């Protein structure tokens, strides 16, 4: 095994589809045993990235090693060490759940008995025993994803690629999938997952890489990203609309900066540094001016705001799970 400290090392990866640059020189490293979240809007190049790292696509430029092997020159070695599961569940719809897993086992040249045994283990682990004898076509979205993930784990690969593993899933299935991913990493698996859900990256990933239009635009832990983009904010909701102007003056005195005012919701927002101390200062000024507040809160920016600031657009609102599939060809807008 040649895998050292880094399970994934990509350098300057480029991919073009005709005139479209899907990737324009992406660097990416994932430490062994960690979860890296590749975050980006639709068409940012996430799927292209995963397809290159899983040997499904050849890059036009740059190089990448997965588990210590070059994805182009040593593709077969890479394939022995990776699992791939994605939004387009790679299962055979006309085979039963059990037959799907046994087939994958046989393709790893497990004996018939070993393949059956491995299939049973995975069916049990992913709560598919009851559905094992039915064809995958009738499975729910969540079951299909679990079967897909189980199929990618037949050979217990050290590196796992998950392309939008929860897109289109209902909230309960999503939580279940997160639980499974955490368990895998606890067992030593390295995971690279792509997502357009900021919450998912925030909750799961040790490290987040934000890509947009085929380029890395930020990387770091969720906390680091939040800090780079901007510090904390204080929100004040004033009870009496008539006192908005007075409140603005009070906040300006407390924070020095110009507050943002939303007259309709009577909300004032001011950027601060210093956390609780700044909050105390604001309280004191409001009190001195005799202004009553309905709500007062200190908050850090959400990843949504980080995302908006970095990419210049609001992340896709697909949380309703309305969208089942995205075009496999990433990079097209």
């Amino acid at each position: 095994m040649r895998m050292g400290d880094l399970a994934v090392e990509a350098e300057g990866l480029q991919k073009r589809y005709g005139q479209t640059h899907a990737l324009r020189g992406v660097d990416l490293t994932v430490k062994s045993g960690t979860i890296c979240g590749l975050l980006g809007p639709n068409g940012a190049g996430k799927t292209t990235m995963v397809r290159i790292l899983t040997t499904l696509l050849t890059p036009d430029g740059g190089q990448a090693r997965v588990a210590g092997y070059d994805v182009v020159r040593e593709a077969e070695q890479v394939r022995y060490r990776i699992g791939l599961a994605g939004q387009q569940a790679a299962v055979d719809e006309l085979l039963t759940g059990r037959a799907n897993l046994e087939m994958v086992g046989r393709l790893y040249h497990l004996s018939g008995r070993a393949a059956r045994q491995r299939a049973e283990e995975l069916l049990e682990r992913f709560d598919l025993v009851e559905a094992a004898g039915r064809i995958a076509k009738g499975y729910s979205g969540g079951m299909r994803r679990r079967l897909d993930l189980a199929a990618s784990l037949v050979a217990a690969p050290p590196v796992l690629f998950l392309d939008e593993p929860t897109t289109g899933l209902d909230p309960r299935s999503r939580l279940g999938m997160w639980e499974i991913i955490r368990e895998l990493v606890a067992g030593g698996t390295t995971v690279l997952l792509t997502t357009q859900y900021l919450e998912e990256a925030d909750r799961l990933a040790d490290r987040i890489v934000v890509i947009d239009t085929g380029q890395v635009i930020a990387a770091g832990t969720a906390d680091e990203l939040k800090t780079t983009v901007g510090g904390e904010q204080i929100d004040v909701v004033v009870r009496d609309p008539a006192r908005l102007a007075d409140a603005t003056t009070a906040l300006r005195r407390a924070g020095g900066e110009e507050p943002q005012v939303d007259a309709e919701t009577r909300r004032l927002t001011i950027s601060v540094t210093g956390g609780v101390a700044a909050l105390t200062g604001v309280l004191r000024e409001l009190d001195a001016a005799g202004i009553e507040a309905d709500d007062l809160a200190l908050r850090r920016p959400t990843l949504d705001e980080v995302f908006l600031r970095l990419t210049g657009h609001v992340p896709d609102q697909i949380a309703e799970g309305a969208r089942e599939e995205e075009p496999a060809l990433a990079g097209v807008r």
Partner: protein
Amino acid sequence: MSALQIPARPTAPFERLRWAIADSLTVTRRNLAHIRQVPEKLLDVTIQPVIFVLLFAYVFGSAIQVPGGGSYREFLLPGIFAQSITFLAITTAVGVANDMQKGIIDRFRSLPMARSAVLVGRTVADLTQSVLGLLVMSACGLVVGWRAHNGVLDTLAGFGVLLLFGFAMTWLGTFIGMSVRTPETANTIGFVVLFPVTFIANTFVPTQGMPTFLRLMAEWNPLSATVAACRQLFGNPGMAYTGDAWPLQHPVEASVGYSLILLAIFIPLSVLRYRTATTR
């Protein structure tokens, strides 16, 4: 997790070939398992040829004179066999186009399996399916009065020639399936290309009455060689007129030759397409 031992891929060429064959068989089993779920897939190779046998035997049969005499139904059956074997290309084209559209192809491509296994598994499964079709058609032929007159060996040789041609057709179908975007297009293209091919031939009517241009096309049509080979090996009528065309004068050699040439063209082309193709 119990001790999971994933065997390492061998490096010796012979061992690698053995693994590639095993992979192909795994995929073949997968494709045959599909038939259990979608039995209507078998209609193409069973009901359809039976309808053709009945239609031609009873509707056209009375109007067509077999050169050299003999029963039209005995003349017809080798034609029906060969036509149905030719349409195997459409079945395969649709199957391949379907596979390429589905997520399962990403699974196959990300596994350390033989690259050729997905296509070989498809063609072998389709060919297996067509054996069933030949059995059904033979039974139907026996009912309407068709017989193979030259003994077991020649009869088996006749079916062998048909299956070899069928294998060539599955690879033509694979190439069509790899070249289009949807199963519907695969179906349409397969049909538009192959339907005329099965009629501009000696399948249903003797070629001697055709206008010269059509007659030449018909006589050099690989399908005609296969039909003629069957007529010769089964001892069915229609071999009295062979024209000037070499393939009809040496139908067995010609059919086998055509099949091998088609395989030599379409296997490499299909595998090449598969290597470069992605799902989109």
